[in-house]
């Protein structure tokens, strides 16, 4: 039985990354390094209004006074922020693509290779029902279905375009959930953010299709600092998905994104992430540092924000998608699967801040560690004084595959209202040799058995994903577990 678990670890480490190719395309990069001039240059390239430049500069000046957080259960060499390229873009022909026909065919090929549909024709032919915003390094290269969505008053565009077309909305909500002073990485993002997606769903509108952004890092030595802002007006509904991949490179690359969600009265936002950034090689060399700030605000009464994440990539993941439950009767949810294998590290979880009355939050976290992977759940539930009748349920389960990995759980609970109800459950299990043997004895290969057992373990999270993505997520997990046992 020892033999099986040893080979499990070896095979896990030998697992290959399928999205590691590089697109050969003419890039426009600015020199590495960060200064006020760089911030001004980024803003100028995007032809931004003065107020946004000022906001960026305030963030940059504040960032200079900050230090990297040290409390997370992760370890890495110091990051040299002066060696990072803060703006990289595929060279524009003219003033940027107006329609898909103008997008560089190399880029379209890239997304095709990644399985991301950018041709509306194909999508309309019934392949899927998703509108996509494709972000390549620092810029959005294409957004599909804009016209159709616009008929319903839905705005779905790149962030840069939203700044030009809907400055009043951007100005009102930018930084309203994650202020530029929030934390080291969010502040850095506020200074240098490049592109991202912007969504506005008007009053009473139920978005008829999944909206999604696909992030791709391609350029070498560049960081990706995208910013996403989603606003669901009263009674609106939207389901949003993001996916991400990057080429295999020996250097670590920084990804420091910010996502802000705002839900007004009776609005619902469902935000799903399938994160598959390059995790580094079998010796832990290279890979993305994924330091991301995601937060939603249930501003209105009976509003709901639901985060679902499947985190399988990145050398290091540091993210805590959170919900501020301000409106009475609002609901916050967090469903997470985090897989660490090889030398990956994840410190992830959520914060639920209960402010309004009868607010509810639900946390389900599933951590899977294999190889030398380290997986930490860090969650905070805060019930403030006025949050009468607040309720929280947390469930944190960890699964270990092999002998050299680790699972850690740090739940923080702060209750200031005596009527609150809290429940916390935590389990740690080892993927049993006896489970694998049982599957083998029924004719199922060890590889299929591991994949089946892990998928079973994650079921409660996968069922929260939109149908087709749930299938994708299961496949992704299977691919990541491929060769995990010999």
């Amino acid at each position, binding site marked *: 039985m020892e033999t099986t678990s040893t080979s499990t670890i070896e095979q896990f480490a030998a697992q290959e990354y399928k999205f590691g190719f590089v697109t050969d395309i003419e890039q426009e990069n600015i020199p590495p390094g960060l200064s006020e001039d760089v911030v001004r240059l980024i803003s100028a390239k995007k032809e931004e209004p003065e107020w946004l430049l000022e906001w960026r500069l305030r963030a940059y000046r504040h960032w200079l006074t900050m230090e990297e957080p040290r409390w997370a259960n992760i370890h890495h060499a110091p990051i040299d922020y002066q060696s990072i390229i803060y703006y990289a873009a595929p060279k524009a022909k003219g003033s940027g693509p107006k329609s898909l026909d103008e997008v560089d065919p190399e880029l379209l090929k890239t997304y095709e290779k990644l399985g991301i549909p950018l041709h509306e024709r194909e999508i309309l032919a019934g392949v899927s029902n998703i509108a996509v915003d494709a972000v390549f390094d620092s810029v959005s290269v294409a957004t599909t279905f804009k016209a159709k969505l616009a008929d319903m008053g839905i705005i779905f565009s790149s962030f840069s375009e939203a700044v030009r077309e809907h400055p009043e909305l951007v100005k009102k909500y930018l930084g309203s959930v994650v202020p530029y002073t929030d934390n080291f990485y969010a502040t850095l993002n506020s200074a240098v953010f490049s592109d991202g997606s912007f969504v506005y769903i008007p009053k009473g509108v139920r978005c008829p299709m999944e909206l999604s952004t696909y992030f791709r890092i391609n350029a070498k030595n560049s960081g990706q600092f995208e910013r996403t802002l989603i606003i669901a007006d009263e009674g609106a509904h939207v389901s949003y998905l993001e996916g991400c991949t990057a080429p295999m490179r020996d250097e670590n690359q920084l990804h420091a994104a910010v996502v802000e969600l705002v839900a007004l009265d009776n609005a619902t936002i469902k935000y799903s992430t399938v994160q598959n950034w390059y995790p580094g090689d079998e010796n832990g060399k290279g890979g993305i540092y994924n330091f991301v700030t995601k937060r939603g605000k249930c501003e209105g009464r009976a509003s709901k924000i639901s985060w679902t994440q499947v985190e399988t990539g990145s050398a290091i993941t540091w993210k805590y998608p959170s919900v501020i439950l301000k409106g009475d009767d609002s609901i916050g949810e967090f469903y997470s699967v985090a897989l660490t294998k090889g030398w990956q590290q994840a410190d992830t979880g959520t914060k639920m801040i209960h402010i309004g009355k009868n607010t509810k939050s639900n946390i389900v976290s599933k951590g899977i560690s294999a190889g030398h992977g380290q997986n930490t759940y860090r969650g905070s539930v805060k019930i403030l004084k006025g949050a009468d009748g607040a309720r929280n349920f947390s469930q944190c389960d960890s699964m270990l595959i092999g002998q050299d990995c680790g699972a850690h759980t740090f739940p923080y609970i702060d209750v200031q209202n005596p009527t609150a109800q809290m429940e916390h459950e935590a389990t740690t299990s080892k993927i049993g040799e006896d489970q694998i043997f049982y*599957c083998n004895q*029924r*004719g199922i290969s060890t590889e*299929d058995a591991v994949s089946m*057992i892990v998928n*079973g373990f994650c079921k409660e999270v996968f069922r929260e994903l939109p149908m087709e993505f749930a299938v994708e997520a299961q496949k992704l997990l299977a691919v990541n577990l491929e060769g995990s046992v010999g």
Partner: protein
Amino acid sequence: MLQIKNLHVSVDGNEILRGIDLEVPTGAVHAIMGPNGSGKSTLARVLAGQEAYEVTQGEVIFDGKDLLEMDPEERAREGVFMAFQYPVEIPGVSNTYFLKAALNAVRKHRGLTEIDAMEFLTLVRQKMKLVQMEESLLHRPVNEGFSGGEKKRNEIFHMAVLEPRLAVLDETDSGLDIDALRIVADGVNVLRQQDRSFLLITHYQRLLNYIIPDRVHVLLDGRIVRSGGKELALELEEKGYVWLEEAAAQPVGA
């Protein structure tokens, strides 16, 4: 169908099986009886291919093939089934999903196409009736929260669906009340057929009241010390294992 020749097996350097010779013909039902620690379950697990057991000597031929050369999954696909003494729980994986994966792995090995959802459902319903299994157990995660009796019945149900050539039942009767025992035994009896052999591993004679064996072998201290017809089980029931232990303790030729 199954030939075991001079089989020696060790666990962590301790020899548990010390030269087993056994032949189970096609279609026969053989029982292996013995007290705790005699090596009964070790024999079952070695046949299924569990890795902790080290074969130091001897061979096992199944349908003319060297069984010990095969991985556990290959043995299963070749038609060796073991009903576990302690069936394992797999949370979040439904019984039907699991069985479909298992059946398709077996079918693929035999050069058959994968069974589709409708065919599978029809098959499962039919087998469910055969072994008196409740439909609710189908949709629950494999063995999770099942009672002891439900787990054992689920094993028999898996056997019915996978249609093995050789079924090894490892103390399937242990921990069952009389009604559950009868249901399990009925399940085995309906699956008894000319081209399928059974090896029943049991501590008690009780099971053999319901499943009548063709041969009974007594295992003591890693060796088969006596073989006989079904009446041997009754004799054991009456006298216990002590008289055989005493006989076995006599020096050779005494």
